[in-house]
């Protein structure tokens, strides 16, 4: 295999991103956003193995965004993602040079024609909030229209806290402890649904803002693919604003719905379908 990418990004830094920069970029970036308690690359494993090997991805930049999903609320993480997307679209050359540590290299201007923004679980909320920031900034972020949003098990309609907590490896062995955990970990309050199945205020606001933005032509906020696993007990499945109707994959759980393997290639095929 010809090596078509260069690995970049500081592996010692818990926040930021990991990237596989195309050596001969052709104007496409794929940006991955992990979910609650996920990892930049680990959440998506084995995308990082399959994509660089695929000739169709030879000219694509692969970016794995990393953020603190437990103790930082979605709005803050969304602003970090917005900053990364802005830099990626307006100043890729500098970003590449900074992360490869080769500042002597002359920058090569690349204009993205297409940015696939792929998010899992809580990452869908972070990604959508980042896109809403772009919408509010619409006079400056003209490149937003290059974005194609793809979602795996999105938590935009909320999540069941007991199951969300299980992603932390905590044993919710007594129901009465849940308010205590909610209070300690803000992300649970933001994503969790209450006993009556209602979403948090934050998610309600996001839905209202998304509807309004879509009515005003911010089509990049419309997810072009939404997938849930039938065995997912964490997030609440359902249709959302003007998003494409969701698809379901039999037998897949919350954590493995977005992980391609040699015998489950659906996530890879979804991404490839948009290249």
């Amino acid at each position, binding site marked *: 295999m010809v090596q078509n990418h260069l690995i970049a990004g500081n592996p010692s830094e818990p926040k930021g991103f990991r990237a596989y920069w195309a050596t001969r970029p052709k104007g496409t970036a794929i940006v991955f956003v992990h979910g609650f308690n996920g990892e930049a690359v680990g959440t998506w494993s084995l995308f990082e193995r399959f994509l660089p090997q695929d000739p169709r991805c030879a000219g694509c930049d692969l970016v794995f965004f990393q953020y603190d999903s437990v103790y930082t609320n979605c709005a803050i993480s969304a602003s970090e993602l917005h900053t990364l997307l802005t830099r990626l679209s307006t100043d890729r050359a500098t970003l590449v040079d900074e992360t*490869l540590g080769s500042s002597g290299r002359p920058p090569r201007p690349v204009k993205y024609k297409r940015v696939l923004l792929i998010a899992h679980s809580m990452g869908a909320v972070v990604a959508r909030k980042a896109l809403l920031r772009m919408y509010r900034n619409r006079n400056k972020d003209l490149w937003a229209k290059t974005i194609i949003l793809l979602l795996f098990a999105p938590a935009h309609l909320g999540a069941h806290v007991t199951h969300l907590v299980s992603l932390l490896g905590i044993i919710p062995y007594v129901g009465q402890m849940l308010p205590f955990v909610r209070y300690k970990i803000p992300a649970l309050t933001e994503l969790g649904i209450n006993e009556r199945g209602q979403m948090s205020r934050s998610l309600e606001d996001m839905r209202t803002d998304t509807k309004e933005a879509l009515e005003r032509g911010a089509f990049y906020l419309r997810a072009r693919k939404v997938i849930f696993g039938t065995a997912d*007990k964490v997030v609440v499945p359902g249709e959302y604003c003007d998003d494409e109707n969701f698809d379901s994959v039999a037998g897949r759980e919350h954590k493995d719905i977005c992980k391609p393997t040699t015998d489950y290639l659906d996530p890879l095929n979804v991404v490839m379908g948009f290249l």
Partner: protein
Amino acid sequence: MDVLQGNLQYLKVHYLLARGGAKAAARIEEAVSPQSSRALRWLLRHHDEEGITDTESWKRDEVDYLLEYYSLLEIACTLNLVPWPLSKDVADPAIKHLEHPAVQKYMQHYPISLPQLLVLRLKGLFIGRVACDDAPTLFWQLLELDSRLYNDNCETFLWFIDGGSRGRYDIDSVIRTLKSSKAYFHAVSVRAREITHLTKALHGFRIFLQFCVDLDALLADPALPPLFRVEAWKYFAYWFRNLSLYVEENDLQRAIGQVAAWKQSDADAARHTASEVKRIRASVERLSSGEFGRFPNQLRDGERPPKQPARRTRPKIR
């Protein structure tokens, strides 16, 4: 930019310079006089000779990072991912650092074999290479797995299984906490400002278990080039050795059960939990047995991993 140069540059920037390995390199280069060489040998002594102080342990960490860099360089050479032969400005310092008597002794105290393999390779005594189509992605996967261990939580857990302690916590505190669902629950579900070293180590343990499952899945792939499998396992082997040294078998099994399980009333969830626990246990057992560290022709039917050595005591504080 040439991709092979780019790969080498990446290793230098992030694994030599950013993590502090370069400081250790400078320290080794300065240790030429008998007196400074003696000082370096003392810094890199076996912990049984005399306990390691706080300052010393930071300096020894830098040596560890330097050795990690050379280990990754060795694997990159195996996979043909860096220019070969290595330029003099890379090869000469490597031999100088790794052949320093104090460093040689250190690698005997704490068995690390990949840097020694690199020295042999640089001298033309080892020529193992792998011609493999997906070499870059295999290497990147290894780097991604490595990066999972490089965070505050995992670092604390790994420090504990290296015999270290922080504040009033050590590996015994972790094991004790994992024995009780209630204690574990309370230690893990805390606000950001209430996080203790114990909380970090417990999160670190969970991350380490997931790391084990993913590393095991990578190494168990029958299509993997055998030399890469051996070297990739050896890169992490120190931690599996420590895990065997510091955590009793029964405690480990119980801890895995605690972290992987959550009590649910429905039978589906219980079945899933049981299979999850089984999977994690199998991965940890395979990785700790050292079977991935041997070439296939060295494995014999029914061969068992060596008996675990007695637990050592190592006063390390940080």
